[in-house]
C-alpha cells in the first residue's frame, strides 16, 4: 500500500489488480469527486434561489400577450360602465367609478397598434406609478407570475413602431415571447 497524499488518502490494489484510491477516512476518490460535484450543484441552486425575481401581470390585448410589472398594477377590475366624456382624445375612453373614486381609463390598444373595438367587454387594470394613476383596458388576464429578473432581455430590434415606445423588455413565457410594457413610459405618452 502506498501513501500518495496525506490530504487525499491512499492507493491500493483491488481484487482485480486495479489501483483504487482510498481517502483517509475510507472514502473513495470517486465519492469525493461526486461530493464535490453535488456541493457545486447545491451552491448553484442556492444562487438560483437568491436570484432577484419580479412579479409580472401577463395579459392579452388584441392578438398579442403583454406584461406589466406586478408592482405597478394595484388591482384588476371586472368590466364596468365607462362614462364617456366629451372632448377627450381617442385613447381616453372615459371615466370609471372605483368604490367612490373617479378614475380615468386609457385604451392601451391605441398605443399597441391593435385594432379598434366597438364594444369593450374586457377588464380594467388599475395602474399606479408615482403620481400617475389610471385604469387600463385589457382583454383578459393570462397569469400573474414571478420570473427571474435576468430572464428579461432588451426589447427586440424588430419591434414595430406602435408598441416600441412602451416596451422595456421581453421574456419567454409559455413558449412565446412576451413584451414587457412600462407604466412610466405610458405615463409620459398620455400626460400633457
Amino acid at each position: 500500500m502506498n501513501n500518495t497524499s496525506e490530504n487525499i488518502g491512499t492507493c491500493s490494489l483491488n481484487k482485480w489488480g486495479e489501483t483504487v484510491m482510498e481517502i483517509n477516512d475510507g472514502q473513495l476518490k470517486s465519492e469525493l469527486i461526486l461530493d464535490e460535484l453535488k456541493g457545486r450543484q447545491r451552491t448553484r441552486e442556492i444562487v438560483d434561489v437568491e436570484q432577484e425575481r419580479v412579479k409580472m401581470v401577463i395579459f392579452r390585448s388584441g392578438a398579442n400577450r403583454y406584461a406589466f410589472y406586478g408592482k405597478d398594477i394595484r388591482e384588476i377590475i371586472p368590466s364596468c360602465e365607462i362614462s364617456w366624456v366629451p372632448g377627450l382624445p381617442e385613447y381616453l375612453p372615459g371615466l370609471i367609478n372605483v368604490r367612490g373614486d373617479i378614475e380615468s381609463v386609457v385604451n392601451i390598444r391605441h398605443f399597441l397598434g391593435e385594432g379598434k373595438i366597438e364594444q369593450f367587454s374586457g377588464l380594467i387594470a388599475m395602474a399606479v406609478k408615482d403620481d400617475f394613476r389610471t385604469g387600463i383596458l385589457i382583454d383578459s388576464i393570462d397569469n400573474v407570475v414571478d420570473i427571474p429578473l435576468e430572464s428579461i432581455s432588451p426589447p427586440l430590434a424588430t419591434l414595430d413602431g406602435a408598441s416600441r415606445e412602451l416596451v422595456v423588455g421581453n421574456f419567454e413565457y409559455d413558449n412565446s415571447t412576451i413584451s414587457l410594457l412600462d407604466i412610466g413610459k405610458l405615463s409620459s405618452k398620455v400626460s400633457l
Partner: protein
Amino acid sequence: MSVSVIPDLNIFLFSVGGVNFGCDTDQAETMTDYHGEESNDLFWFHNELGFGKEQISYLSPVIVKIRTGDARSYRIIIDAVEEISVFSLNDIYAFPTLCEPFTLKKGMWGILKHKERMFFMVDFHLLLKNTPIKIEQKKKAKRRSK
C-alpha cells in the same frame, strides 16, 4: 381645521346625448324654450362640447342665456333641465389628472356625484373665451351662404 369660504352651489342638471351635465345657476340669466330659431350668438351644447360627428337629439330643447357680465350675448341650447338643487362642494370632484387638460378646454371643471351618476360641471364662461371667434366664423359662413 380649515373652513371652505366657497358656499354651496345651486346647480341645474341636464343631459345631452345621454351624458349628464351640471351648471351653476348663477351663470344662467334666462331659460326659454327653443322653437327653431337661428342666431349668431346661439350655439348647440353638443357642438360647443365637441360631441363629435354623432347625431344628437334633444327631447325638449331650452335656450340658456348666459350671464356674461358685459355686452356680449351668448346663448346655448341644452336639453330640458332635470333638476335644480343645492349641492355641497363635498359632492364635487376634480377630473382625473389625465383628463383635466382636455375637459377644461371644453369648459368642464369638475364632476358632481349625485344619485349614483356622474354630472360633468360646465362653466360657460370658460367656453365663452372662444366664443367671439366662433361668432365671427358663424357670421362669415352666413355671408358666404347668401
